[in-house]
């Protein structure tokens, strides 16, 4: 293999070629990239400098994603890799890396929302019959809980862009962890300007 992270092989700032005067050292080592793909979880453990470990995720299918404006996180299935700012190849092969835009399953977030605010989200308009409101919204609640929910309803408004995504059952999210280092694919749901930016990129 022999991947090293030294700068002795590079030319100096003046352009001079540096002569090799020593062999590669272990503390300069580099390892093969993980290239984490979507699939059934497969994680390799790596012993690193100092006896510490890194978890090299070779395949992942789920991650912990946060809905920032609502301040909650849920473990969700990752459906597909949709955009990568660095390399289109990584989108084609479905590689999970930090800052990749992915589509995640919306159901845990929908369930939380309907339990927290007792209002439907992502309701499909003009598709014929009105969908039967889920059991979560209409279940029997105690007086105290009912009052709490009523007081929350004022904040229950969701951005229409997010609402569309809920209707489709898929949300756009961005990975914020490094799967090849931590073994996890965690991230946050795209909202606001960031969401608008990436939707525009995807449309092209």
């Amino acid at each position, binding site marked *: 293999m022999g991947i090293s992270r030294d700068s002795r092989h590079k030319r100096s*700032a003046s352009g001079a070629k540096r002569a090799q005067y020593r062999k590669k050292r272990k503390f300069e080592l580099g390892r093969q990239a993980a290239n984490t793909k979507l699939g059934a979880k497969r994680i390799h453990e790596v012993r690193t400098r100092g006896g510490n470990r890194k978890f090299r995720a070779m395949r992942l299918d789920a991650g912990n994603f946060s809905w920032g*404006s*609502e301040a909650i996180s849920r473990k969700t299935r990752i459906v597909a890799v949709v955009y990568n700012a*660095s390399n289109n190849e990584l989108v084609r092969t479905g590689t999970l890396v930090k800052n990749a835009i992915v589509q995640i399953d919306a159901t845990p977030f929908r369930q939380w929302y309907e339990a927290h605010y007792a209002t439907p989200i992502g309701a499909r308009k003009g598709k014929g019959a009105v969908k039967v409101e889920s059991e979560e919204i209409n279940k029997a609640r105690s007086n105290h809980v009912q009052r709490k929910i009523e007081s929350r309803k004022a*904040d229950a408004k969701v951005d229409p862009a997010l609402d569309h995504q809920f209707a489709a059952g898929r949300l756009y999210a961005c990975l914020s962890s490094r799967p090849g280092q931590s073994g996890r694919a965690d991230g946050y749901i795209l*909202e*606001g*300007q*960031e969401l608008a*930016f990436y939707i525009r990129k995807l449309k092209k």
Partner: protein
Amino acid sequence: MSEQIEKAFQKQQGIFQNAKVAGKKSVKNNRWYKEVGLGFKTPKEAIEGHYIDKKCPFTGDVSIRGRILTGEIISTKMKRTIIIRREYLHFISKYNRYEKRHKNLAAHMSPAFIGVQQGDSVTVGQCRPLSKTVRFNVLKVQKKVVKGAKNFAKF
């Protein structure tokens, strides 16, 4: 915004932009900035501007520590970085005289400093390595004073 030129969404790391709007706060620029210390004033453009630069000492993730040096700008052709020339005199003891020497230094210049040209004097502070040759960050610009030639200016 016009600063989203790159393929990835440019934003300040660690600043949450999408908090639920309860009132009028959405219009204000939700920007983070810091004072670099050592008496350097953070420019108004850094506080009120819209640029995103993770290597900016005022709005990014670099700290200024170590040496503070000054020099004259000789090149501003690179993206967000400049070359500074520092002149000094070296003493030759045999002849009891000095000789002129110079060293060039690459420094990162934040977009907070606008209208900076070749020939201006600049104060730079040491920070962690930002690239292969850049270890300094511009903190203050002192424009070159052109005596007498107030009418001619480059277009």
